[in-house]
């Protein structure tokens, strides 16, 4: 018995030597890749650094949702930093998800004004690439890449928030396209968007996960009304959007009619699996670091261990995307732990004694923080995704 078991190991060392040399080759290749990534990082730093030096933006927490500056997005576009993973044919960068990760990480670290292009770059472009036809890709992707098309997300509804499949907005077949009627809510930056991604019901006869479809809608179409919702910080990014008999041309159906649920689940792993679920309060951490002393070392060390590991998990998710997988459970897990970290950074800033007047960075972060664990999938829902995967027979 023992002999049987020993056999593979006796073969082991010789085989392992091969692995070792393969690893060395990988390392060589990795170094080239590392250099390319490092160059990208510096390109971003140069831009944010020059804008900062010229006083053109103030770094802030939650910048990817709340710091909207079309001019900055266009500067990124001019440097080829939007749609960095998309095919060159549409004006994209043709690079991998890890390249996009270093760019987004650096922008968040700098607290830069990136809200204008963030959603389209993160999840709409990839959704159009996965499910859209070539004509739709040609129609929409170049505009996103140049930061001329600004997207908002028409997912949540008054009666369908965390339970996304409960959407009631309908899209009825009409001559040459669809007619959309319904309400969307918590639609960030709808008042500035040129386009909306829309999840709507095209068939209500089946179960709630069936009969959903995805569309791209021009925000200038007659029948769309955008009303502001001011959030608790006094800022206006949320909106309610009403659709009344809004015509959507045939070709703006994204993917397959009735396949919306499966498609949107994949999109959610892009929405949840990025560094903005970890770094929303990083500018506050950088500020707190300047005020910390040796009394805070233990807490700071614990926080940094989490930061480092969460950054690693973002990297693992980018690798999974590059390998063609939709890392749904990993993204849920990252968002669950990452947003918890974002909140704990605020507590650390309190601990080191940063001021808390209404306009101070700490207060700004705190007033934004309740949204961290709700938007893009409430923490409680994320855990149920993990449970399902853990108990799958």
């Amino acid at each position, binding site marked *: *018995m*023992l002999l049987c*078991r*020993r056999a*593979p*190991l*006796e073969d*082991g*060392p*010789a*085989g*392992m*030597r091969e*692995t*070792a040399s393969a*690893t060395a080759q990988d*390392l060589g290749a990795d170094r080239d890749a590392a250099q390319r990534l490092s160059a990208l990082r510096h390109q971003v730093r140069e831009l944010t650094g020059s804008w900062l030096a010229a006083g053109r933006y103030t770094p802030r927490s939650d910048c990817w949702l709340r710091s909207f500056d079309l001019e900055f997005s266009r500067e990124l576009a001019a440097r080829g930093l939007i749609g960095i993973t998309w095919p060159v044919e549409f004006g994209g960068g043709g690079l991998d998800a890890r390249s996009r990760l270093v760019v987004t990480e650096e922008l968040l*670290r700098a607290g830069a004004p990136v809200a204008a292009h963030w959603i389209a770059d993160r999840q709409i472009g990839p959704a159009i690439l996965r499910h859209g036809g070539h004509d739709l890709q040609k129609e929409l992707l170049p505009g996103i890449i140049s930061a001329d098309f600004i997207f908002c997300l028409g997912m949540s509804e008054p009666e369908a928030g965390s339970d996304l499949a409960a959407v009631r907005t309908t899209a009825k077949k009409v001559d040459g396209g669809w007619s959309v009627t319904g309400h969307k809510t918590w639609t960030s930056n709808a008042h500035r968007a040129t386009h909306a991604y829309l999840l709507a019901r095209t068939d209500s006869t089946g179960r709630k996960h069936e009969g959903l479809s995805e569309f791209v809608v021009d925000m200038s179409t007659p029948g769309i009304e955008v009303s502001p919702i001011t959030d608790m910080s006094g800022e206006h990014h949320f909106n309610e959007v009403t659709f009344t008999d809004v015509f959507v041309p045939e070709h703006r159906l994204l993917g397959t009619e009735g396949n919306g649920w499966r498609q949107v689940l994949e999109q959610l792993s892009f929405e949840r699996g990025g560094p903005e679920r970890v770094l929303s309060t990083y500018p506050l951490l*950088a500020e707190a*670091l300047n005020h*910390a*002393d*040796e009394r*805070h*070392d*233990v*807490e*700071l*060390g*614990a926080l*940094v*261990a*989490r*930061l*480092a*590991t*969460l*950054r*690693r*998990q973002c990297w*693992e998710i980018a690798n999974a995307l590059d390998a063609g997988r939709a890392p749904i459970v*990993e993204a849920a*897990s990252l968002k*669950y*732990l990452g947003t918890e970290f974002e909140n704990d950074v605020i507590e650390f800033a309190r601990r080191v004694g940063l001021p808390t007047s209404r306009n101070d960075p700490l207060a700004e972060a705190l007033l934004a923080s309740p949204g961290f664990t709700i938007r893009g999938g409430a923490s*409680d829902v994320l*855990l*149920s995704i*993990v*449970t399902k995967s*853990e*108990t799958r027979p």
Partner: protein
Amino acid sequence: MSEFARELTDLIRNLAEDAGEKVANHTGSVWAQVCELGLAGIGMPEEKGGSGGSLADLVLVIQELARAGVSTPIVEASTAGYAVDASPGETFDTIAVMPDLDVLSKAITASFAAVPFADTARGLVIATASSIVTVPLAAESVTVEPGHDIADLPYGSVRLDDTSAAHIPGGPAAPEVIDRLILARSAALLGSAWGAYDLTRKYVTEREQFGAPLIKIPAVSTTLAQTAVRIRFAQSALDRATTVCADTHTPALRRFGAVSAARISTATTATLVARTSHQLHGAVGITAEYGLHRYTSKLWALRDADESQFAYCGRLGATVRSEGEIQLWENISA
């Protein structure tokens, strides 16, 4: 992960199954078997008496032995072997870290509170901030007072009284040895956490209460998911540290950041896993007969082994403060 990961894992699971109740017998027949199978020498080249393989293979072996509930001195033996550049066997050295100890003089006088396996090890490797030295534990000037940790694993208080120490020239530098110990310890911690979690997941999906498996109770499924998420988080921390340590070109600051993050993350996870796995098991989990305590007591022992979790946190925090945000971003957390 190497292509041998599956094979190594199966090998260790078979070993644990055969060993059965003897698994807790750390320096007896199970350690002999581990050595005979070549597992103790993984990650050490054959010309130095090792079995070949990569650092990732060694980390996997440590993790899987712990996950299978097999208690061995592999963390100490492999790290001491790395320090002195020779593969461990049934006869092995243990290791202790004492950064400020002066080892420049030929003879050392010092006390070490709790050195794992000091009662059975041949020698003690001492890592200071800048040197690696060894002393034979059987020397007349050495006193070893045996004791047991929370998990009932043996250690010894070691007293050196003017003991002559041998310097190890040409081997890895002291910080590399210390980081290697932190990495290996993290692997054992995570393996024990997986072991407790494996039992717990099985228990809540099989055990029926109120007419259905426990997992149907929302509070139970939530607790299980929180545990799963944190174990995988600690796994990411360990995987990162392994990759970073395996690359000899890694800057020392990045290596320090990576092993510290792994050590702190696995220790934090250990606390949570011990607590939740006992809670989800109910009373049966606290009996001597049921195997859960073999894992949870190790989690409690290992999270503060070598140095406490909080000492690692404090050192990482102090380093981040003195190095500043740029180093935090580019090396320590990168």
